[in-house]
Structures are given as structure tokens and as C-alpha cells.
């Protein structure tokens, strides 16, 4: 497969190029993280530092369509993320 203009040949290249950068991570259970990526492996286990976690708390009232969820935020200095919870990782935009 010929590399695209961005020089990415396999999906993990995207992660490799984001080492030491701030990344956005979407996790199962309506969690999102923003932190500096220090390490990853083939399971997508991650080590992040200076992390802000955002948890969407969907109100238990059923029948509510979209919106009206509260968000809880908290900060962690250093974090290990187990890979199986990862849905998406987005590096900072490179222009």
C-alpha cells in the first residue's frame, strides 16, 4: 500500500507520531480524556500525563432524547489506560 500524503502506512503510525503530544481519547462508558501521550502498545494501552477526564452522566430520566447530560471533569497527573476501553484516539491537528 503506498503511503498517503501524511506518510501514514498503518493506523498505529498515527499514534506513534503523537508521542509527547496532547491527544484526545474517547473511551467506552461516555468518557473522554485529554492528555500528553507518553507510551502505547499494540493493545492501545496508553500512558498519559497531565490528563483531564470528562465523564458524560446521562440523566436516569428515561425518554430524554439527547442533550441534558451533565459532565463531570477531573484531573490526573499520570494515567494508565487499558486498551480495550479505547474507542478513538485523535492527535493534535498537524497543518
Amino acid at each position, binding site marked *: *500500500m503506498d503511503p*498517503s500524503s*501524511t506518510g*501514514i*502506512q*498503518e*493506523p*498505529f*503510525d*498515527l*499514534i506513534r507520531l503523537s508521542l509527547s503530544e496532547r491527544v*484526545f481519547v474517547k473511551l467506552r462508558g461516555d468518557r473522554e480524556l485529554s492528555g500528553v501521550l507518553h507510551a502505547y502498545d499494540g493493545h*492501545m494501552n496508553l500512558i498519559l500525563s497531565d490528563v483531564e477526564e470528562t465523564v458524560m452522566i446521562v440523566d436516569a430520566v428515561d425518554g430524554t432524547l*439527547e442533550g441534558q447530560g451533565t459532565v463531570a471533569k477531573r484531573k490526573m497527573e499520570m494515567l494508565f489506560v487499558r*486498551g*480495550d476501553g*479505547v*474507542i*478513538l*484516539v*485523535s*492527535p*493534535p*491537528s*498537524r497543518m
Partner: protein
Amino acid sequence: MDEQTPPPPDHGSTPPPPPSVSGSPTDFLKGVVGKRVIVRLTSGVDYRGVLSCLDGYMNIALEQTEEHVNGMVTNRYGDAFIRGNNVLYISAAESL
């Protein structure tokens, strides 16, 4: 690319399909790299973007990605890595 499997066994009874018609998952993926795709996750969330590449686990790298939830754009990412276990399907957004 690190693809997993050979095509299904052919038991000599039927000729293989003509090679010009994309058949196997591998052929489909070769044809769709660099094109606009819709990636639907099992959660129902869609990611629309240009498929940069993928691997045998269906891990996906997308460019110019839009996240769609219930038909509305909820996020945009320059690049996005999607872990393959969440993927329900990859669909060509333009006809091949």
C-alpha cells in the same frame, strides 16, 4: 498490509469470481483506501472521513473525520485512530 486470511477454500466446483470485480474483504479494503468512507461503530456512532489506512484488526486511521451521532455532527478531528474492536462496518461513502 498485514491481512489475516486466505480467501475461502475453493473446492474446484465453481470457478473463482473474475478478479476485476472486488470480492474479498481484502480486495474491498484495497479499493477503498484514500476514499471517503463511513465507519459505523457497534454503539451506532458514525465516523465519516477519508480512509488513510487500516490493519488486520480493523484498526483504522481516518483523515478529515466527522463524528455523527443521531445524524448530527458532534465532533471533528484532523486525524483519528479508531480501535478495530468497536467497528461494525466500513462502508464506501462514494460508489466504487
